[in-house]
């Protein structure tokens, strides 16, 4: 399978400015050296609690932000490599943006209320000048609507006429319009009801099968991430603390944080209530002044002396884990 994106030590710090001269007084360390690569037809799940940097990662990859440090390499269809960490020229930019699309969390905000569904879905097609005539374009958009499970005659309606699940389908139709190779989905189902959530996940999976699309699936919902992903990255305070194949990760989580996270998910069995023993005390520290050493050590129950002094590096090649417990 062809590689699409690869990141090497990507960091993102946001400066905090204060005073009349807007002097930089510190940084929000949103992302600390992230390394991963994604191939065609692969789904990588990114899990973590709010503030762990998972959304920042998505935004750095879509180039909404430029990384503070590190390299992002993008490989096009023919396997040619482009360094897109900083400013890129217009031609590469167009190519990159047609290869990479995004589906956002809240479908109530991500669709322009003043545009019809047809306009919304055909906008990327017009920007990239895919079709020569209007009628060709219209037929294609109608096909897309059918593909995502909506009716053709929704073409000239407005977003407010649709429910959350339907809007997310529209957002997905827009994302697949340019036949991208990678779609970044940032919490695509967390604003939806459970009965609708499954519909959207099924749709995303079907589209993947049909077009070999790769997904980066960002979510806080472990069950959903497990279902869709081939590989899962667990993030904590801007760091990737564990990365493995999804089955491997769920069957034998290594990092204490991953273990605690899994124990915190409610169990759906009233006879075996598992939340009575709390697995994780306290709250994540602030990313402005992260604790020295391992970022998780203040909440970790296996804390050792070394944990507060030295930051653990990623160990193992396949089931990656950053923890001093493992040598």
């Amino acid at each position, binding site marked *: 399978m062809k590689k699409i994106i690869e990141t090497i030590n990507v960091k993102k710090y946001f400066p905090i400015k204060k005073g009349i001269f807007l002097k930089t007084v510190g940084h929000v360390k949103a992302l600390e050296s992230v390394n991963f690569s994604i191939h065609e037809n692969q789904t990588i799940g990114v899990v973590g609690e709010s503030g762990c940097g998972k959304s920042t990662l998505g935004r750095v990859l879509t180039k909404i932000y430029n990384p503070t440090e590190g390299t992002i390499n993008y490989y096009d269809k023919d396997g040619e490599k482009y360094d897109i960490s900083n400013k890129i020229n217009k031609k590469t930019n167009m190519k990159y943006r047609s290869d990479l699309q995004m589906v956002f969390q809240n479908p109530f905000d991500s669709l322009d209320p003043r545009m019809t569904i047809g306009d919304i879905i055909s906008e990327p097609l017009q920007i990239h000048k895919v079709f020569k005539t209007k009628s060709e374009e219209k037929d294609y958009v109608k096909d897309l609507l059918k593909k995502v499970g909506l009716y053709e005659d929704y073409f000239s309606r407005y977003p407010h006429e649709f429910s959350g699940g339907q809007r997310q389908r529209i957002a997905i139709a827009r994302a697949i319009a340019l036949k991208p190779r990678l779609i970044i989905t940032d919490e695509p189902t967390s604003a939806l009801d*459970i009965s609708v959530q499954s519909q959207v996940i099924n749709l995303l999976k079907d589209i993947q099968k049909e077009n070999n699309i790769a997904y980066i699936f960002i979510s806080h919902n472990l069950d959903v991430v497990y*279902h869709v992903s081939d590989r899962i990255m667990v993030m904590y305070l801007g760091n990737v603390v564990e990365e493995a194949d999804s089955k491997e990760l769920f069957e034998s989580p290594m990092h204490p944080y991953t273990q605690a996270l899994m124990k*915190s*998910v409610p*169990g759906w069995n009233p006879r075996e209530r598992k939340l009575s023993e709390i697995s994780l005390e306290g709250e994540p520290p602030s990313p402005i002044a992260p604790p020295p050493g391992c970022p998780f050590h203040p909440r970790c129950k296996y804390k050792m002396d070394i944990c507060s002094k030295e930051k653990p590096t990623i160990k193992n090649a396949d089931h990656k884990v950053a923890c001093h417990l493992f040598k």
Partner: protein
Amino acid sequence: MTEKVLEVKNLKTYFRTMEGTVKAVDGVSFDLYEGEILALVGESGCGKSITNMTIMGLVKSPPAIIEGEILYNGKNILELSKEDYRKLRGKEIGMIFQEPMSAFDPLYTIGYQLFEVCKTHLGLNKKDAKPKIIEMLKKVGIPEPEKRFDEYPHEMSGGMLQRIMIAMTLITNPKILIADEPTTALDVTIQAQVLNLMKNLQKEFNTSIIFITHDLGVVSELADRVHVMYAGKIIEKSDVYGIYETPEHPYTKGLLASRVIKEYKDRELPHIPGFVPKATNFPDGCRFAERCSFCTEKCQKVSPELIKTSEIHETACFLYGEDTNEKDN
């Protein structure tokens, strides 16, 4: 079970809009017993929040049309004057909201906002209230409560604010606590902490809780009884074991099956087809008929009523109704 603390009888809350009358709550009846946690479960727009807003007197009528009875201590609280309602709300019936970030006033300190409650409902002055507040903050697990007392809401995390909100409602020792999706905005590890806290405090204060949520996982961890709502009606009532072990209504079954579990990996997830009908034109028959795989002609024409199907179970579905009717005859 013990005494009833709240009785809701055939409650209807309608809103008139340009597109027609929205029947947000359409004939809901339930009882709340002393010291229990009752979960109201349903998807967005099913009327679970409006039911509780109506109980709290937060729905303005007119313009809204409210019918039915809400009996608290034998009195219909819908007939109370504004002044009397205010005495009840906060003191006898407390509420925890979904978004802790927007439920606090950003211009006042945490301590002041808690003091306001003590002043209004307990008649305490600042000096007497402070130790009580600090003790309460300690109880909900706020570190350094003396310092937090003088801080503002923006200095706290979501989880901490939710704990403070719990402290704020429990400080008056209310009989009833209404919690509207209290953990939806929180992370799972924090959610586990808050749920645990609520459960422990509920035992300590012997409060009855109406817990509103769409998350069946949370319900299984916390509730004693569960009522499932769909399109403005309660369609199934049971204790918590009944819902998870022998669900009856096709909608409840569908909801439980929609859970993403490990066994579905690499397979298609089961789901309920279609969408919830619009609140302005509900069908005459069963409101779930359109999405139901057991739908018959009768379902399309007549709306089913809740029928007792077993000791603990009530279901509004013709699949069960006829059976029991025959037995009765």
